């Protein structure tokens, strides 16, 4: 007897519907699974058979063939245990024919028949809804996650017995998950950081315009602390963004238990020894990397010159196009990767440059260290800020005026609201996404500002790209200020926070870098 149950496989961050077909016929007792399946899926037969025995279901000595269609799509993971079990049960007559017709089923089995949670429930429920299913049966632990999708009933089941009962019309009843925690309740706050006005300001600007930020400073000065707190001032994810992020986290199995959707911006801080594959995604059968996990949030790379150049250069494409295409033998995937990059580095191997009394690195060591970051990479960073070593006074001072995340978040929200309004219908979401052509349209300047930026162009030797960075950042500063036009104060601040080619190179040769005005430059 033949029957078919709907399930789904994960491809990229989307779910693709898969028909699980079971055929039970006479012949030599036999259990086989076909349909381009991975070893994990093959193992399902042992789990299904043993689970049936343990809950007292007798399997007649029949020839059982399972097919997962379409047959040219790779199926991986343990999510097919439950649909296979359901298909076999239906084929053997334990479940009424077609009683699960309009349902999609996912779940992993234990040998005692209980059901374990699986990854990728959210995209599967979305796929089920798109396919026109009215019910989605998922492990009870995943029920909250699946329940985030409206317009489809999500049933959480804890065991095969519950599944059989459901097919006969008895719905399982489970305790409700605790209420969602307050999404603005972060464990860290900007008011934890004492002093560091310039750094906080840079973080505020970065968050308001989604500009990539570079922090340079001696060890222990608070670079990581600052980066960790940037998500706390970013606006909460909107519905669409929240779904995008939750889908990614669901696919990799990182959804926190009992939370239907991720509402907080992700913060990812991989160690600098990370491999290119782990950072950007990949593998024989592609899986998402850290850049995708940081989608709509913050990717913090500490000690960035210590990262291998190959890894670092991989970041160039996602930084530019906000997605990453992974092409492997096992398939091609496009993962979203729109993140705010916060990079941190010591200015030299010892970390104390330019304090010549503490830094004993040679000129060569400093330049070599900084040269590890390619120009192409630095070109993609809008903002740079020096994080000075904290003085004892500012560390111990209990200043109640320390600016808090709540205050900063309000400012960010205001600035982002202005941007949303301005770029309505243009496909641009933040100032950092402005193109050269749109800069002219949206970044109008006062006469003073135009003059200042022109002087900067001449005297700082700004490149065309450097000019665009300055103007884009100035646009964000003007938005924070609530101004339509960019004035010279906005431009000046953007100039002081610009990221130059060498992030902190010594000027040891006249005219070789930096501002040349003071020395008239080398005129040749």
């Amino acid at each position: 007897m033949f029957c078919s149950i709907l399930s789904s496989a994960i491809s990229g961050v989307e779910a693709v519907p898969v028909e699980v077909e079971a055929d039970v016929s006479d012949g030599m007792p036999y259990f086989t699974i076909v349909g381009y399946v991975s070893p994990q899926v093959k193992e399902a037969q042992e789990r299904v058979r043993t689970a049936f025995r343990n809950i007292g279901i007798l399997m007649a000595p029949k020839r059982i063939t399972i097919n997962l269609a379409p047959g040219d799509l790779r199926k991986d993971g343990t999510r097919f245990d439950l649909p296979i079990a359901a298909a076999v049960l239906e084929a053997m007559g334990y479940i009424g024919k077609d009683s699960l017709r309009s349902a999609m089923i996912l779940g992993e089995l234990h040998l005692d028949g209980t059901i374990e949670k699986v990854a990728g429930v959210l995209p599967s429920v979305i796929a089920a809804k798109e396919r026109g299913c009215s019910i989605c049966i998922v492990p009870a632990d995943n029920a909250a996650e699946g329940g985030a999708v409206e317009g489809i009933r999500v049933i959480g089941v804890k065991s095969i017995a519950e599944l059989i009962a459901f097919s006969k019309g008895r719905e399982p009843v489970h305790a409700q998950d605790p209420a969602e925690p307050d999404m603005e309740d972060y464990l860290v706050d900007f008011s934890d950081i004492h002093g560091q006005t310039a750094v906080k300001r840079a973080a505020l600007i970065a968050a308001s315009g989604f500009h990539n930020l570079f922090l340079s400073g001696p060890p222990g000065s608070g670079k990581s602390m600052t980066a960790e707190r940037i998500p706390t001032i970013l606006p909460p994810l909107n519905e669409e963004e929240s779904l995008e992020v939750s889908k990614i986290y669901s696919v990799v199995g990182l959804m926190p238990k009992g939370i239907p959707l991720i509402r907080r911006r992700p913060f990812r801080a991989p160690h600098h020894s990370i491999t290119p594959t782990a950072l950007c995604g990949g593998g024989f059968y592609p899986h998402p990397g850290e850049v995708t996990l940081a989608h709509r949030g913050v990717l913090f790379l500490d000690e960035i010159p210590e990262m291998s150049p190959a890894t670092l250069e991989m970041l160039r494409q996602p930084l530019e196009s906000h997605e990453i295409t992974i092409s492997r033998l096992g398939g091609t995937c496009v993962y979203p990767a729109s993140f705010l990059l916060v990079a941190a580095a010591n200015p030299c191997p010892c970390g104390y440059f330019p304090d010549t009394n503490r830094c004993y690195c040679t000129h060569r060591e400093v330049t070599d260290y900084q040269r590890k970051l390619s120009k192409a990479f630095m070109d993609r960073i809008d903002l740079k800020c020096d994080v000075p070593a904290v003085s004892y006074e500012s560390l111990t001072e209990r200043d109640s005026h320390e600016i808090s995340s709540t205050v900063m978040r309000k400012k960010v929200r205001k600035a982002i609201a202005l941007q949303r309004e301005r770029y309505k219908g243009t496909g641009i979401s933040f100032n950092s996404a402005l193109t050269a052509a749109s800069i002219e349209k949206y970044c109008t300047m006062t006469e003073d500002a135009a003059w200042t930026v022109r002087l900067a162009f001449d005297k700082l030797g700004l490149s065309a790209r450097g000019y665009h960075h300055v103007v884009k950042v100035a646009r964000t500063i003007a938005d924070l200020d609530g101004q339509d036009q960019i004035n010279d104060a906005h431009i000046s601040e953007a100039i002081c926070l610009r990221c130059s080619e060498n992030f902190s190179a010594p000027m040891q040769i006249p005219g070789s870098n930096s501002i040349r005005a003071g020395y008239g430059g080398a005129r040749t």
Partner: protein
Amino acid sequence: MISDYRQDEILQQIRYINQDDPEYPERFQNYQRMPMGLYVLGRMPDPDKKTVAIVGARYCSPYGRAEASRFGEALAAKGVQIISGMAYGIDSWALHGALQAGKAPFAVLGSGVDVCYPKESYTIYRRMIREGGGILSEFEPGSEPAAWHFPIRNRIISAFADIVLVVEAKLRSGSLITADYALSQGKTIFAVPGRNMDALSQGCNRLISQGAGIAWSPEVILEELGMVIEPEKQSDELHKNRKGKLPGDGVPGQQTAIKNREENVSAPRSGNGTWKERTRNLPQKYAHAEDFQKVFGKLTYDPQNLDALQQRTGMDLTQLTRVLVQLTFSGFVLESPPGYYSRT
């Protein structure tokens, strides 16, 4: 190496001056272990003119940078030939200063004369050849810079000089090798004094304790060279040479420096004027703005970052950067390394 299309042209210009050549410096015969000959690109230093070698740390501080440039400029303006090693840091800034004064200096390289090392100095290198200076080396054209070349080329730098001026040096420094050669060749050594807490000044301070002259202003060196300064002309000339600077940025305090030194000991930087004088020299449109005075007053010759300046001035960051950028563009403030600001 210089790019190929220039190379032939440059190779043709290189002259080799051996010991029999009339151009071979006569004074070399007094010293031991002088080279058999020198390769020259451009001119040889004029033996009849006074020559000062300015050497120092590659990895210098803004203070050293400013002092090297100031001494180079002031001495060159008075017709003193400047010679140096064209290394990173002090050497390059001294040569740069001399070029600013319109008097091309000389450099003795640790590589072939056609090999510009470090390559970042190429602008200076080219200007020196073009504007009537010279590039000298005892190594064959095409020689790559090797670590052992540098200490021995220092003996040539000191041999050419009448006075060796060390601007900044740590306790263990290549500049002190030059000073040692200078001593064995019987030259006078001057050192620019610095604060005891600065590692980069300790070499200089030790030289002073060992009897080197204290180079507290370029005039001290001119005096040592026996070059009398006519007070009237001096400030004008220096003023003229400081092009790119704003009017009124003269050298007050210098005119009387020679007449009555004691009176002016308190003027710390005669080339740039004292604090108060500099502040007074802010152009009219700034002078009225309190913010400009405030920011400029808090700036030092040590580079400070935005955060430190914000704390010291207590100003809003937006306002502070606006002032800083204006000051930078007009040449009162130097941003180096990027993100750090100091007085020029």
